[in-house]
């Protein structure tokens, strides 16, 4: 945790410097007749962020924050495993949206999580994975009139049937 705290502060300091540099694409000073330039607000806020990072590093050196006093790892083996399986699952879910549609991706993600990670029964996992996207389809597309991504053309026949029901 101790090394992680310093690395995080360093990363955020670099981010602050990048934002300061990016802000200078617009004027950062006071322009007579038009007021502060367009870059002034983000530039000075990023500068304050940088100062905060220096203060966080100073607190790390003084060992005042809980993280700077801890020798535990940021993530143990279980932490890494859950981050990879859950975080990876979410990334997979979002990737699938453009391929098999929002509702298809919801079904696959729910089945993956409930059956594979949650270790629930196959029937329950399948039932929830099928009922939820159908219910969400009628809520979003039917009631709220919000069109979700329908994926690649091969999903069209399924959507045609569903659209026939609501329109």
């Amino acid at each position: 945790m101790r090394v992680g705290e310093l690395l995080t502060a360093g990363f955020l300091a670099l981010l602050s410097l990048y934002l300061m540099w990016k802000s200078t694409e617009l004027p950062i000073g006071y322009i007579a007749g038009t007021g502060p330039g367009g870059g002034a607000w983000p530039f000075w806020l990023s500068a304050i962020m940088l100062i905060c990072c220096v203060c966080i590093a100073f607190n790390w050196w003084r060992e005042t924050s809980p993280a700077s006093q801890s020798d535990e790892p940021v993530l143990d083996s279980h932490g890494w495993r859950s981050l990879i399986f859950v975080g990876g699952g979410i990334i997979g879910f979002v990737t699938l949206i453009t391929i098999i549609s929002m509702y298809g991706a919801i079904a696959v993600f729910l089945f993956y999580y409930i059956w594979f990670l949650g270790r629930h029964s196959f029937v329950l996992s399948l039932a929830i994975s099928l009922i939820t996207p159908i219910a969400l389809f009628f809520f979003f597309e039917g009631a709220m009139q919000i069109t979700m991504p329908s994926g690649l053309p091969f999903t069209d026949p399924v959507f045609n049937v569903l659209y026939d029901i609501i329109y």
Partner: protein
Amino acid sequence: MEVLALLGDGMLLSLQPLNLMMILIGVTLGLFIGAMPGLGSVNGVAILLPVTFLVPPGSAIIFLAAIYYGAMYGGAVSSITLGIPGASTAVATTFDGRPLARQGRASLALVTAALASFVGGTIANVLFTMFAPVLASVALSFGPPEVFALMLLAFATFVGLGGDDIPKTIFSICFGLVLGAIGFDQISGAPRLVLFDYNGFLQGIGFLVLAIGVYGIGEMLWTIDQTRGDVTATTPKMTVKGMASDTKEAAKRGWKGTMIGSFLGFFVGVLPAAGATPGSLMSYGVAKMVSRKPEEFGKGSPDGVAAPEAANNSASTGSMLPMLTLGIPGSPTTAILLGGMVIWGLVPGPRLFVDEQEFVWGLIGSFYISNVAALLINLAFIPVFIWMLRMPFTILAPMIFVLSIAGGYAATRDMFDIWLIVLFGLGAFFMRKFDYPLAPAVLAIVLGPIAEPTLRQSLLLSSGDPSIFFTRPVAGPITIIALILIFLPLIKLVRRLRDERKPAS
């Protein structure tokens, strides 16, 4: 007395069968729309606007106002049960609502939220009825320096909320403000902070993208990591006896927050461009400051749920005031309501109270009736919301992820924003690990687009002289209070450092 007679007529009008039906349908729809992460009163009012052409204008605006009311009640539901604020007005509700739910006391949090919302709405309605024209003229005297001073006060409250690590809190505030500045410069119209020259950033980063990322993804990953995936703490039970005792406890332990939220929320809501978000946050901060047990805030204090909930309901009524009396909408939802009124041939402004008396008092009467209906419907649905929490965590967690992604897309209709949600979620997980408070960033992204233009307009008015924030009669005291609140923790820190050195020397 004339006001009371007019109000009585208005209430009778809103109790007519058609209007009462519109209120009940509107409140129920609003409750569920508000409870859905990503959807809020704006979506509900905008989507259902065409439906109102089927009924007379008076019933139509009553229907829309009922949706608005219901959604303000519903916002607390997702904040408490799922830990995801569906709208910016409900962010402060998560601070204590979610911890209460985790302790298995979701029913207490939901009952407190419902009662506080009801009291907040009722007090706001009374203030609205009695002082509408006076308050409208006060609100009109708020120029850019006053609004910026108010924003500064809101940011100062964040510093107080952020705990002991002040640099991390200030970093979080500034980070949220910078994220809010991405897109286009509001004054010159030039592209600004287009990160890595990626065009997706041109449209800016919305509040919901950050809020869903932080609370829907980041907070859930953190919970899974902390509990090792074995979340069995929340097994809330719901009985009539339990609900009665929760009501008693909510009234006893949440009355102070409710009162603070009701009055402060209304006043902030009345101000054009301010709205319910700063109102709810300031109320939370003030409730914490005046509490005898401030250490309970953030860990499940009923006052911490009551203050923002009373404030956001009170502010939503307050924001109707400049809309009706001056024609200035105080929030995005009232802007849509204003549009609806114009379509129906009603012209909001000072003449509305004279020319369309029946309409105006019918609407005000419907506020009272909607408030009672919202309370009863909300209480009736609490067992349904509690049932949701009894689901195994391995089913609830993926449902929250799905609602976060689908709700995020529904709000923005852009896949780029969905990827940003995931990125913010992963970033929030690691920042949470190192105790960076994230709520200030979420609230700053909402207030940034209000604060920046008012600061620039003020400095333009004063030719760059910052003393404009100190010399004006309203802005001056607000700025000074804000600066005291910002520097107080810093002074305490310097003192503590000095005390630490003394024994060493």
